[in-house]
């Protein structure tokens, strides 16, 4: 059994070496992509006074930035498919930097929408997708750990940016702060320079030197296999069919919509994202509503961030263990359901201690989910098609991500109480969690069946190859295989 089939990437990923430098680069890129829009809220009050606008008008800056970041997903995927990760990340870093510098000279609120929102958002999208994609090219065996470590960038950068932004605002006002932030975000280019494309030639050669082994191939495969092998082998045929479509598939892989695992992931995620961000957004206001003072409410967010920071690499590590890795989809389903349960139990917390406990558990839940979010997608579609997959997923998730917090806010306004919003968010997360459990159970069963068929086919072709090569050894090969 040629080991190349085990990965189907065409080469063996290094799983280390320069890969760890890639993880550092991805850490920075992902960190800025997620944390930057959230950290800008510190400037809103000053900008609101300066331009004499209402709070909702200024909050649009964050929304436009987030929307652009998600909507630019497919564009980013196309560019990564064509040019690789490194140039896209560097261009992205330059774009965000330019956006912030231009915004620091802005004279109307619409300048901020365009510079920070649109240009900045696109730049961040050009950071997020390539960072995720390149991890898939460098890691196979240790991929969940690498993903977990890279996703830790988000809470760490947020934790650093929040007090830094406050300091910048006090020293330089909002204009100077935007200028300096433009410089800070340029460090994404440093991250991009680290993202050296993997040397496929060198890794391919080592495979060719090994003689193809047919005996015991099935046993070897079980050690490092994940769902991509089966799904990729199957969908290769689909791909050959759709290659006749030609042009579109070269840029972005639309045939993903026929991929069973991808569809499960997409449907579950779209529902889940309605209730994903709202609890974070409303944690501090809810605490204040329950009578907690402002500093303690802000401290809750810090506790949440610390729990989040701690659990992400841990989740990556756990996801990498030999018990979890083959069935990592169940681990993800557990994480989603755990989030839902957390929110459903939240209204039981009344005083500060209860809220602290909730913040810790929610931090764990949020981190677990975030660390696995892209790892499971890689697991389902494989590193080849991951770039297109993540582009399509982000643009479709754009809707729930943007609608989630305002809808939750509307729920709070209608009922005048936060608990109904938390119940709703809990349901929005628990239902997809259970959906994932059920669907992946069936999916794994189908994949195991298909794998059984492939093994049989491979064994037959292997036998035929061996027959052609060495006629006298024919009978011996037959005996050992059975």
């Amino acid at each position: 059994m040629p080991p190349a089939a085990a990965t189907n990437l065409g080469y063996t990923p290094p799983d280390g070496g320069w890969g760890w430098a890639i993880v550092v680069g991805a850490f920075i890129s992902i960190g800025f992509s997620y944390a930057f829009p959230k950290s800008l809220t510190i400037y809103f009050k000053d900008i609101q006074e300066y331009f004499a606008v209402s709070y909702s008008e200024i909050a649009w800056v964050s929304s436009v930035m987030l929307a652009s970041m998600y909507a630019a997903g497919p564009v980013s995927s196309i560019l990564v498919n064509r040019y690789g990760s490194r140039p896209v990340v560097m261009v992205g870093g330059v774009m965000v930097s330019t956006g912030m510098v231009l915004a620091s000279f802005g004279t109307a609120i619409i300048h901020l929408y365009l510079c920070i929102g649109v240009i900045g958002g696109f730049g961040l999208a050009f950071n997020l997708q390539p960072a995720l994609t390149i991890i898939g090219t460098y890691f196979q065996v240790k991929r969940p750990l690498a993903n977990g470590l890279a996703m830790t960038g988000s809470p760490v950068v947020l934790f650093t940016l929040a007090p830094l932004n406050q300091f910048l605002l006090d020293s330089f006002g909002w204009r100077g702060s935007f200028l300096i932030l433009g410089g800070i975000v340029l460090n994404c280019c440093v991250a991009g320079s680290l993202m050296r494309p993997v040397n496929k030639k060198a890794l391919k050669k080592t495979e060719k030197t090994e003689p193809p082994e047919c005996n015991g191939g099935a046993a070897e495969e079980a050690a490092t296999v994940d769902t991509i092998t089966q799904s990729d082998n199957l969908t290769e045929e689909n791909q050959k069919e759709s290659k006749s479509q030609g042009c579109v598939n070269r840029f972005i892989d639309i045939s993903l919509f026929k991929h069973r695992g991808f569809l499960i992931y997409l449907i579950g995620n779209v529902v889940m994202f309605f209730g994903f961000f709202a609890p974070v957004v409303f944690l501090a206001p809810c605490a204040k509503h329950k009578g907690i003072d402002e500093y303690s409410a802000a401290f809750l967010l810090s506790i949440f961030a610390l729990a989040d920071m701690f659990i992400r690499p841990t989740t990556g590590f756990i996801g990498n263990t030999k018990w979890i890795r083959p069935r990592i989809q169940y681990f993800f389903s557990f994480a989603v359901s755990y989030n839902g349960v957390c929110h459903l139990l939240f209204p039981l917390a009344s005083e500060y201690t209860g809220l602290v406990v909730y913040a810790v558990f929610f931090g764990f839940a949020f981190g677990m989910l975030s660390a696995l979010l892209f790892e499971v997608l890689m697991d389902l579609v494989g590193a080849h098609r991951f770039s297109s997959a993540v582009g399509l997923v982000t643009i479709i998730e754009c809707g729930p991500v943007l609608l989630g917090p305002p809808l939750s806010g509307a729920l709070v306004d209608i009922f005048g109480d936060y608990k109904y919003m938390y119940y709703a968010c809990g349901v929005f997360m628990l239902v997809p969690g259970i959906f994932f459990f059920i669907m992946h159970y069936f999916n794994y069963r189908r994949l195991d069946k298909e794998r059984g068929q492939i093994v049989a086919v491979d064994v037959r072709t292997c036998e035929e190859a061996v027959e052609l090569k060495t006629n006298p050894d024919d009978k011996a090969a037959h005996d050992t295989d059975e």
Partner: protein
Amino acid sequence: MLASWKQLIFQILLLLISCRHINTTSPDPTPPPLVPIDSLPRDVRRAAFKGEGQIEKVELLNPVNLELVCTWTGHQNKESNITGFWRKDGLEIENSHLTVQLENEQYQLQQVFNIVSEENLGNYSCVFESEVKIDFVVAVPQIGEIRDKPVVTYVGDSGVITCKMEDSKPMPNTWKWYKANGTDKEEIFAAAEPQRYEIKNNERKTKLLVNNLTMADSGLYYCGAVYTLSTSMGHVELKVITYYEPLKPFMAIVAEVFILVTAILLFERSRSKKNDTEGDMMSDQTNTLSPGENNGLEGSSSMRQRKT
């Protein structure tokens, strides 16, 4: 005729008595106001002694007859008579010594003060036996929510300073703005310099816009909430800096990024040169590589291409 003379003398006598009464209760160097004292509304504030350093806040907007009542339950051995007097701003008010009798197990001091102008505002204290004291801080509503950090703006830009009176406190009649000039305050008249200053007044909020800032505009600005009795002040600092201030850290960070990127790419190029000398023999078709990986930014791999 004798009766009318008697009436006139009687009225004059009454007038003299009431004048003297005014003089003993409010130690004003200035002559009393023309507003008849009796027509002022009466505001009664009571306080019972709870412990040391007790301060009661009295918020007033308009002139009133303020009656302050202090009660004290006394020591364990309660004497029937003790002395009590009043202080204003730490100074004893003349002729305010009274002998207080023990009634219903407590001592009570009360006094009516005419609060008609700013000088009447201050810290009034009732003192029992020179040891037990309750302070009444009589003032107009203070501006609570005010920015404590400076507003940082740039030369040539415009600065906005806002002041707000909380919803829980009474609305001021109007707002005024002052700029600190040494130890003095100069009032800012927006009408005099409309291009430079703009004052926008809302009932509870006021906004001062300063256009075309120069370095000289830095300093403390005071917003005053004007009430009939007095004006309560709040201050905000405005800092004006040039664009060079944030530009310096910005250039430092850009330089750092540039250095790191060049270092990483050079390191990679030197590594790949080493690998190339080993791999030159074995490398055959490089066409299998996707075209995207070789980009202008990536010097090393493009060099490899050119070699083979």
